[in-house]
């Protein structure tokens, strides 16, 4: 799952190393367009529907945050 997430992030912003940062938002690595694309990719790949109320800074600041969000949505692998 972790690798898939990093692949998606890298497709959206190839210029950044997402495995090295744990604060994507504060470091300006993702903006509103990027979050929209990322959520669409995650929804499609893991066949889930991330709720708008879950699109919060703490769930998208790091790869770990995204993993936890996916876990909450029933994705385990």
């Amino acid at each position, binding site marked *: 799952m972790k690798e898939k997430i990093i692949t998606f992030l890298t497709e959206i*912003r*190839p*210029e950044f190393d997402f495995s090295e940062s744990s604060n994507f*938002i504060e470091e300006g690595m*993702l*903006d*509103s*367009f990027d*979050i*929209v694309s990322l959520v669409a990719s995650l929804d499609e790949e893991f066949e889930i529907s991330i*709720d*708008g*109320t879950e*699109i*919060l*800074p703490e769930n*998208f600041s790091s790869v770990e945050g995204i993993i936890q969000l996916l876990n909450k949505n029933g994705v385990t692998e």
Partner: protein
Amino acid sequence: MIKINLIEYFESTVDQFPNKLAVVDGTSQLTFKELTQRAKLIATHIAKKSDAINSPVAIYLPKTNDAIASFLGTMYSGNCYTPLDTKNPAPRIEAILKALKPSCIITNNKFLANLQKCDLDVDIINLDELDGNEKVNESYNYKKCVDTDPAYILHTSGSTGVPKGVVISHLSIIDYINWVADTFDITENEKIGNQTPFIFDMSTLDIYLMIFRGATLYIIPEHKFIFPATLLDYINEHEINFIFWVPAVLVNIANLKLLDTNKIPTVKKVLFGGEVMPPKHLSYWIKSLERKIVYGNMYGPTEITGTCVYHIVDDSFNEDESLPIGIPCRNTDILVLNDKEELCKVGEQGELCVRGSSLALGYWNNFEKTNTVFVQNPLNKSVPERIYRTGDIVFLNEKGEYIYIGRKDFQIKLSGYRIDLGEIEHYILSVFDTINAGVFFDKAKEEIVLVYESETEIPVKDFRIKLMEVLSKHMIPTRYIKMDVLPKSTTGKIDRALLNKQINNI
């Protein structure tokens, strides 16, 4: 006496509401009295650098109360302000400043270093070094100005790589804001939630409703727009009742169905503009919020100050039909001209042209570009009269409403950002000087596409890293297509029409 300068409007509001909140940003808030003091201090420092009037002062600050104070300070000093995008890479800032030749640049500690990267010889005012207790000089040069003098210069994407500086006069803003305030019944009770960057003309409405009517301007922190649920919390926390946003933000909230759970009962007026509002998403807003809310579709390019044609959504709204751009604003006349420079009949498509006090003075330091779009009204054979040719194709329907069709040229709109594909192409070819390439727009996916000729594939990362140095993020292509050979026309130029068809599956 009739007011002829934006500072006169501001002073009258300060007199009426000295202790009312004027501006609130992510870290501070200022009353009208405090805002005027800050502005006068800045004006005093501008005057120390130069006693000139009507010369541009560049404002290199993020969206903050200090940016607003700098705009007002510049106008107190009798000059015109130019907001610069702090997110722009250095070469674009340099290109703008070289064409603009400002008398000084206003910035702060945080952004000073970026300016020092540019190759410039201009005086800088660092707001962090100003002493709040300093005595201000009360003799302001704005009293020497006339209402047709410039108030600000906003830059829009230009096809040759150099952004065009659109010069807007005090008169045009006075004309526009009085119309907006009357039409949408704006008073000091308005709490305006600002979304658009100050480099966009849409922010003119937000800023000047505060200045003209004593409304409070809430400069919503940008990260709230990354996470729309937090944006709705912000609205509730500050009891925002008026918004004028780009459709992209409204669409995002609709797609996430956030209004199902997060109600925003204080919001009474929802205006949008800068790009086409999809009716399906608007329908979600209408169904989700209370019935009495006013929705306004605002159409107009930077060159006519703000809005020239508008549509207030009424009972005839149908989510299966595109939203009209509507009817002309007061003191604005619209001419739709066909190829023969004649007025189009009902239903006939033509170029939308504008007449009225809203017209910009022209493009700064660029008479050639000015004269190609600010032209003599072809219907007036008796006296000089300027119209602005928007390049937008529209038609008038049976109900007397204008309907937007598309562009005449290669300009696109992304989230309200006006982008000339030619500007992107110019920078790409200057960075990658060995490749042949064209830039296109995939309308369905709203994606900028780069098509390039090469024997080997160039990694996307290589493109993006280099383009980040010269282009704003929203201008960087997000799809890259390699072709062994690009299709060419008989003259050897890239066959754009063919590639455009392929990308858009026409």
